[in-house]
């Protein structure tokens, strides 16, 4: 987080602390932050307080919600509530790795394209165009199916689909920053190009990346669950939310199997959308309404 915060300081005049306090006055931001904090805490601590084992049959099959099983049991007699809690351990780390790696790959390629220009630029950006011309889910499905099931392969598939977004973003940022006076000054005193890019351009491009990454985090959670739902991501008996909804889809007269994991996904994605929105309002003066 500290790395990401530096550019914020550079991009804004008010100290970060003041901005944060300002953010806390927004119900959107507070809601997003609390929901996210809730799921992160669940992911870390669920082992200590979960009522049951997420993988073991702990009751009769397909019990509707009752006193022992708050959200009922599924086709194998596993506790739905416990499984939903454990789902946070799959969705959040998966999405986090996708976002971190896409931001790294995309930013590197995008800033190189913008800074170097010429053929490098043309080649990188044409590849971006092509990848972005795929309907994202189709490409992700094809890659995931080819690599085989499993969340690690889901991560790879989503990276393949997502990196061009950041390449485009960073290229635009680099082009805009490239012509500023401080870059000209750096060039004129003979600072090497790689160093200019790292020290004088990238730190200034951080804000839009942070905003976009926050927004995209939710979408990655959604797509991860979609792939698992289609049988191309996490595999049963993993208590992943998409897998659980798939199990619910096979027994849709037992509504309680799919209800909770869906609400879990919805809450996480909404939290990230809210956070992204508030960040944009706070950090990006142009987008302010």
């Amino acid at each position, binding site marked *: 987080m500290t790395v990401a915060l530096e550019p914020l300081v550079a991009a804004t005049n008010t100290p970060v602390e003041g901005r944060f306090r300002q953010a806390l006055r927004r119900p959107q931001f507070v809601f997003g932050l609390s929901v996210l904090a809730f799921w992160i805490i669940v992911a870390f601590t669920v082992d200590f307080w979960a009522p049951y084992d997420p993988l073991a049959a702990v009751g009769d099959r397909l019990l509707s919600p009752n006193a022992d099983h708050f959200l009922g049991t599924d086709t194998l007699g596993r506790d739905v509530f416990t499984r939903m809690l454990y789902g946070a351990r799959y969705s959040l780390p998966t999405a986090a790795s996708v976002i971190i790696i896409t931001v790294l790959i995309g930013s590197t390629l995008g800033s190189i394209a913008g800074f170097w220009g010429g053929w490098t630029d043309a080649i990188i950006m044409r590849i971006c165009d092509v990848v972005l011309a795929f309907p994202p889910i189709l490409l992700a499905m094809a890659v995931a199916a080819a690599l085989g099931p499993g969340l690690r392969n889901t991560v790879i598939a989503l990276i393949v689909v997502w990196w061009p977004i950041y390449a485009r973003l960073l290229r635009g940022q680099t082009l805009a920053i490239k012509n500023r006076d401080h870059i000209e000054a750096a060039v004129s005193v003979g600072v090497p190009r790689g160093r200019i890019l790292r020290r004088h351009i990238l730190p200034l491009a951080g804000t839009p990346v942070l905003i976009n990454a926050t927004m995209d985090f939710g979408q990655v959670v959604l797509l991860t669950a979609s792939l698992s739902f289609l049988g191309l991501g996490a595999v049963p008996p993993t208590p992943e939310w998409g897998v659980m*909804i798939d199990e619910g889809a096979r027994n849709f007269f037992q509504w309680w199997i799919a209800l909770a994991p869906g609400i879990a996904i919805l809450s996480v994605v909404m939290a990230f959308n809210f956070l992204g929105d508030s960040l944009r309002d706070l950090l990006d003066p142009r987008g302010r309404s």
Partner: protein
Amino acid sequence: MARFVLKRLAIAPFLLIGIVTIAFLVSRLIPADPLISIVGERNMGNPEVVAAAKAEWGLDQSLAGQYLSYMTNLAQGDLGTSFRTKSSVSQDLLDRLPATAELTITALVFGALLGILLGVTAAVRRDGLPDHLARLFALTGSSIPVFWLGLIVLSIFYARLGWLPGPGRLPPRTDAPPDVTGLFTVDSLIAGDFGLFWATLERLILPAFVLGWGLTGIVSRLVRAAMLDELFSDYVRTARAKGLTERAVMFRHVLRNALLPVVTILGLSFGSLLTGAVLTETIFSWNGIGSYAVDSTRGLDYPAINGVCILGGIIFLLTSLVTDVLYAVVDPKIRLS
């Protein structure tokens, strides 16, 4: 304008070649063996069967050779033969396109109309019920998992209340209407079978609602915001001063100006509608391109996967072109270059 369209059209083939190449590479540079899906797990130990299948499907050629023959066939409009259905991929896609078209177009129309209606009423009566509804759609629109939403509406309106029929395009043990357009609702009307028309329309309601949900949210917020921008402008005051009814002012004057952003969004949302269609079709057992894509990827049926990707790419390129042009037509201030 003509130059802009031509330029865009000229780039399109290169993008398509790129799409085809990437789809091809994804399907070939992978650990999983497509032979399993052709000859079946049991025959993999039989070298004769494997060799014969390899030769038959061109899998014995080098990667470059496979690519070259794929491209040559593609140039002649041949997308290859599906490993799974053993029939031509282009035919498979053509057979399934109408189902997806019927679903997507209904969702698009439904989402746009409901969105505009909610947006207008929300702008006119702020904080009324439509305003809250619009807000609900908008809040959940981009965060709700469509496959889950589909499941929830099915379990409420079909399993619990029994108000609407379950998954599928046709009632059980019913024949499709005589094929004219492939759209069951249209075809049944052409055949004059009103009972069937109603039955097919009824089966469209839930999937189209689910698929159009996100669009409803975006459109209603856009229309509301644009209407509020316009409501206090001079021409609205003039229209009211002339003694026009409030309805005429809203629909004939304000809405017309507020619709501009909607045009762009409808075009841009086509891509996400396609994504949504894959998931919606799976939940509603809708026999279209989306479920074809899912079945093909599950079966490692590469010719079919590539076919779907190429079709998706073409649709994407066309819709973004049409959106840009439409935008210029609707708003004379925009000059394309």
